């Protein structure tokens, strides 16, 4: 079976004097329905890789495909949540949440009723008609996450989706994400710099080196699902986390 995400010898340099070589020699795959994380220090090229997969950046060389389509030639194949969420200031929270679905051609009624249910679950109940500027950073991020999941695509790219969340809300979101993922089995590529988060959520974790970013290590997270807080206190988890942190440290210096 063809993998859902396939990246071969990918390199991208931002033009400039001198050009900024953001990523180089990136090779990775994600099988259909797999949950894959990408960890790396900030500025190493994680967002760049995601933008290439989202079709927003044409890489300088190499190959990338999403769900069998050439990501360097097409756009809108995956559902993409940019870093920081990014909401339209002139749409109310609910309309922001349904934007991706609406653009993808889902009926407004259907999208709206689906979003309404999830607002409660996301701790956003009562804020359906708030403007983004009236929401806290964490709430804005959750609206953006909702928008991404309501976009009917089988592959989802999330760029540090929980960066602005406090620990408790973050845990809630982890539980929700695992739930949805277990039910829908969409392919997820998840960018984070939180090692614990990566191990808790993922099947596999890639470690990216400092710029120019390349994937230097790969870990499998073997814990049985559903995973709760308890796995994080197990000795296996601690060992794996230690190895991952070592790899990350080596890759970042």
């Amino acid at each position, binding site marked *: 079976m063809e993998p859902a995400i396939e990246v071969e010898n990918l390199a991208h340099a931002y033009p400039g004097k001198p050009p900024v070589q953001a990523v180089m020699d990136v090779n990775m795959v994600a099988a259909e329905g797999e949950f894959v994380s990408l960890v790396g220090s900030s500025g190493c090229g994680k967002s760049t890789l995601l933008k290439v997969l989202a079709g927003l950046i044409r890489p300088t060389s190499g190959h990338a495909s999403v769900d069998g389509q050439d990501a360097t030639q097409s756009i809108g194949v995956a559902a993409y949540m940019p870093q920081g969420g*990014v909401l339209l200031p002139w749409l109310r929270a609910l309309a922001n949440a349904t*934007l991706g679905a609406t653009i993808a051609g889902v009926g407004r009624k259907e999208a709206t009723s689906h979003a309404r249910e999830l607002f409660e679950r996301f701790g956003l109940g009562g804020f359906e008609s708030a403007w983004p500027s009236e929401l806290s950073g964490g709430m804005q991020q959750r609206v953006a996450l909702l928008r991404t999941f309501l976009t009917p695509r089988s592959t989802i790219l999330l760029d540090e989706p929980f960066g602005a969340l406090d620990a408790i809300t973050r845990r809630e979101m982890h539980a929700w994400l695992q739930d949805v993922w277990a039910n829908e089995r969409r392919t997820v590529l998840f960018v984070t710099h939180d090692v614990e988060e990566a191990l808790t959520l993922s099947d596999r974790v890639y470690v990216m080196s400092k710029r120019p970013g390349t994937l230097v290590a790969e870990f499998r997270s073997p814990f049985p699902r559903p995973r709760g807080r308890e796995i994080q206190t197990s000795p296996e988890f601690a060992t794996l986390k230690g190895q991952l942190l070592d790899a990350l440290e080596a890759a970042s210096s």
Partner: protein
Amino acid sequence: MTVAIDLPRARLPGAGSAGRFLANYLPATLLLVALVGFWEAWVQVRNTPSYVLPAPSLVWEAFLRTRGTLPGHTLTTLNESLLGLGIGALAGVALASLMTSVAIVRRVLYPLMIVSQTIPMIVLAPLLTIWFGFGIEPKVVVVLLVTFFPVLVSTTEALLGADRNLIALLQSMGATRLQTLRYVLLPSALPGFFAGLRIAAAYAVTGAVIAELMGAQSGLGLYITRSNSAFRTDQVFVGIVLVALLSLALFAAVHIINRLATPWAFAGKGDNS
């Protein structure tokens, strides 16, 4: 349930709008009243001839005396201002859209537009009267010429300044150009457009009056020139006050439309305005 750590930014309580209105405008109103009082006292004490500086009480009398003809003049000026502002704003938006979507148009036209603004209206107005006659047409053209530029500039800047992240987001969703226009470019240009329109509204009435000074059949400009040549300085002041009030009304109308059209830009900032 998610708990209260992640509180939304507080919405300011919508205090009584009358109270806010007072708090906002009371100081300015008091100052105005004090100035008018001082003016009245000064003229009375110094015994200034009324053709030089009429007392506010005389201005009020002149208003009552000419009250019959004033609505006609005011309506004419309002009419010219609204027509000119409407056409000017449309032209500004159309040109801004063209200049931001076609780079060559921007390079050719933008410098010309800026040069065009260095021609003083006071020079252009008599010429327009020669070309268009004494009806309302030359006035509308003057208003159009003074109003389209602020709208053009601020709309152009707003369109060029659209957040690239938002455009990229829409692209990543596979949005068409039309959808990007509707969801990103248009709404992000609205606040800039209204900023320009507010300035244009403030210029519009003045533009109409200046054009009327060059020759007209009706309008506040005509009322002012006639009063001036008859040494009715009190009536000149009536004209000035009406011009100011008309400008203010237009300005306020634009502000209200702005609020209705871009509610998000006023969210979380209370209810005052």
